[in-house]
């Protein structure tokens, strides 16, 4: 991949990341994993690192994916790429369109995009859940047997346990990632 291609890949991701950093995930998965540059496992590990280190998750992801693909310069170029649309569009709005957020057209468009973004984030969550929990060999079985064969039981137990804790006490993501790492060493 050339730096030029890397830059525009992240410009495109930045442009379509709308309504919060998690919206970066489905876009980046499509570009980097489906594009054949990263494995899904690598991608998930990068998401984990991006969630447990300082800074906006989109910027963290751009830096780490850029570095993995093209070294330090790649990390910098990908970061500049993902922030370029934000910077340019926000400056235009700040200079000429102060009533932007209250404009009925903007509000209508955003209503549609936000609802769609939820579905896209859900798809990223599903792909990650599948990679983390349903990793077994189905061996050609069908129905319930297929699901049982596919499920990594210990990972599923871990998911249910941590999920229950999250429902009652959502803490900082970094806490879950550290606990997940420790439990992974002990039980997986």
């Amino acid at each position, binding site marked *: 991949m050339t730096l030029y291609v890397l830059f525009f890949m992240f410009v495109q991701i930045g442009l379509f990341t*709308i309504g*919060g950093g998690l919206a970066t995930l489905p876009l980046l998965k499509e570009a980097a994993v489906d594009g054949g540059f990263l494995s899904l496992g690598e991608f998930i*590990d990068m998401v984990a690192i991006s969630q447990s280190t300082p800074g906006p998750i989109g910027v963290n992801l751009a830096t780490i994916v850029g570095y993995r693909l093209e070294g330090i310069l790649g990390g910098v170029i990908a970061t500049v790429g993902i922030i370029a649309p934000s910077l340019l569009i926000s400056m235009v709005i700040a200079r000429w369109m102060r009533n932007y957020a209250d404009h009925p057209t903007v509000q209508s468009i955003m209503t549609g995009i936000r609802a769609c973004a939820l579905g896209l984030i859900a798809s990223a969550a599903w792909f990650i859940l599948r990679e983390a929990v349903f990793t077994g060999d189905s061996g050609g079985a069908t129905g319930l047997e297929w699901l049982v064969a596919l499920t990594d039981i210990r990972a599923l137990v871990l998911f249910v346990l941590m999920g229950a804790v999250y429902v009652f006490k959502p803490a900082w993501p970094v806490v879950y990632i550290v606990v997940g790492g420790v439990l992974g060493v002990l039980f997986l």
Partner: protein
Amino acid sequence: MIPEVTRELVLLYTMFFRIGLFSIGGGYVMLPMLRVEVTEKRDWLSVPELLDYYAISQATPGIISVNIATHVGFKRRGVAGALAATAGVVMPSVIVILLIAIFLPALRANVVVARAFAGIRVAVAVLLTGMLGSLVRKGWNTAVDVVLTVAAFGLVVFGDVSPIPLIIGAGLVGYLLGRWRRHRA
């Protein structure tokens, strides 16, 4: 004697560097920190103005914290201010992530770390599912919202459709529905 402009650009850079450094795991702490810095410690913005910037930033393409940094920086010192604030907010990410990324391949080769990452993947799945739950509770207001979310999920997971055309399509649906509602009213 350092000129006033330079001093303020450096201030914008360091202020947003600090904010970037302390926003871990999502931009939730950014707004409270920013409020203290620009409305309490300094008389740069009123609280309603800051909330206005926040609303604009959420409705603008791109990374929300970069959008806010650009607005605050631009208001103080134009394009140079926007660049200084944005550079500040992303710099901690770039430094910390590059340091981790450089050492990551050596770490991954370790068997214990590989097992830790298996557990961490489960933790990421938990976090994403949980965050999605709270986003859905806030974001689902009408039947159309539910239909758009479910359709986007289904098309990506079962139809292998790329997200970008879906985002454009959903924006168009939102626009047409809004026009139709205003037309009827």
